[in-house]
């Protein structure tokens, strides 16, 4: 009876062992697939970030052009706005920023985004002045918010600006 019992205990062990192996492989494989599927979307997001960086850099240049073209209008509009005056609505500063579909605010010439062929969803631009009275100098902050795909990026470009009295 002893040999019979030993054989019955060992019967099917190879299948059990190989099933354990196969199950282990399955677990490892699914973990590998999961890792792969979570790392894959990183590249498109990096591309969107790069596209947003470049686009925002360009928009800040356009914002700089407008500031450089109309410094006195900007300064007075900015000071007027910061004083909280609402005797002119929209305020001159809001006019300076522009409404939607103007160069600093989600411009869509001919219906296509200014960023075409890059799929820029929206963008907006605004300014801040930081005064250093001790040195009679200002720093102009150009803020650009860009949304491409699912990512929203905010940029701040700071430039030195000399200030000269008008009168």
């Amino acid at each position: 009876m002893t040999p019979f019992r030993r054989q019955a205990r060992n019967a099917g062990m190879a299948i059990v062992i190989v099933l354990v192996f196969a199950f282990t492989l399955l677990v490892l494989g699914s973990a590998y697939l999961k890792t792969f599927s979570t790392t894959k979307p990183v590249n498109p997001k990096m591309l969107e970030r790069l596209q947003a960086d470049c686009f925002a850099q360009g928009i800040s240049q356009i914002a700089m052009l407008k500031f450089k073209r109309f410094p006195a209008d900007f300064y007075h509009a900015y000071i007027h706005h910061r004083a909280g005056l609402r005797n002119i609505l929209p305020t001159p500063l809001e006019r300076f920023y522009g409404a939607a579909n103007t160069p600093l605010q989600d411009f869509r010439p001919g219906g296509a985004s200014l960023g075409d062929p890059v799929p820029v969803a929206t963008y907006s631009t605004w300014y801040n002045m930081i005064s250093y009275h001790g040195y009679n100098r200002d720093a102009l902050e150009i803020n650009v918010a860009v949304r491409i795909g699912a990512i929203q990026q905010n940029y701040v470009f700071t430039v030195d600006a000399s200030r000269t009295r008008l009168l």
Partner: protein
Amino acid sequence: MASIRLRSSNPGVTLLEIICAFLIFTIATLGASGLISFGHRGTQKDFRMVVAMDILSDRMNRLMLVSYASMSAAITAEPTVLTNDGSAGAAFWGVPYGLATYSRAGSFNVDLTLRHQAVTFGVQPFNIMSSVGYASGTPTTFAFDSFEPQYYICDGTAGRPYQVIKYIATVKWTEPNGVARSVQAVSFTVNLQGAF
């Protein structure tokens, strides 16, 4: 004798069992190797994408340093596309375009597209002549004219020259399975040197 009879009444069970186990193991191993191969292909594809973005970033960073005047002089048509597929050595103000090779990632082609961009700025002009008792630190003394939505037009027509150039860098490559892929980025350069 009883035990001998019992063994001999199940001949080949162990062999059959080993064959089944081997089959299962082979199928599992094949599946695992296929999975690894799939992951490897995906990694190579991602690597090519990373290289393309690296090239794109390099070209855009270089283009940002090119002046408005240099770009404007190069625009012979709207748009002007600088392309040199399959050949290396072409450059626009130090920005290489055409063939770009990268070790272990293959070949890429870079196109540069330049075009003037019309823009129109609206302003509500500050009017110092109407600002009675003007004081620069007293905003209640500020007077503004009415808003002019087309105060400054830069559309390339007579007396209204372009001031903005839109440039696009495109990096193109072909996957081993023949699928064409590309990545692009857009930016602008502005004429800040003009007399204002």
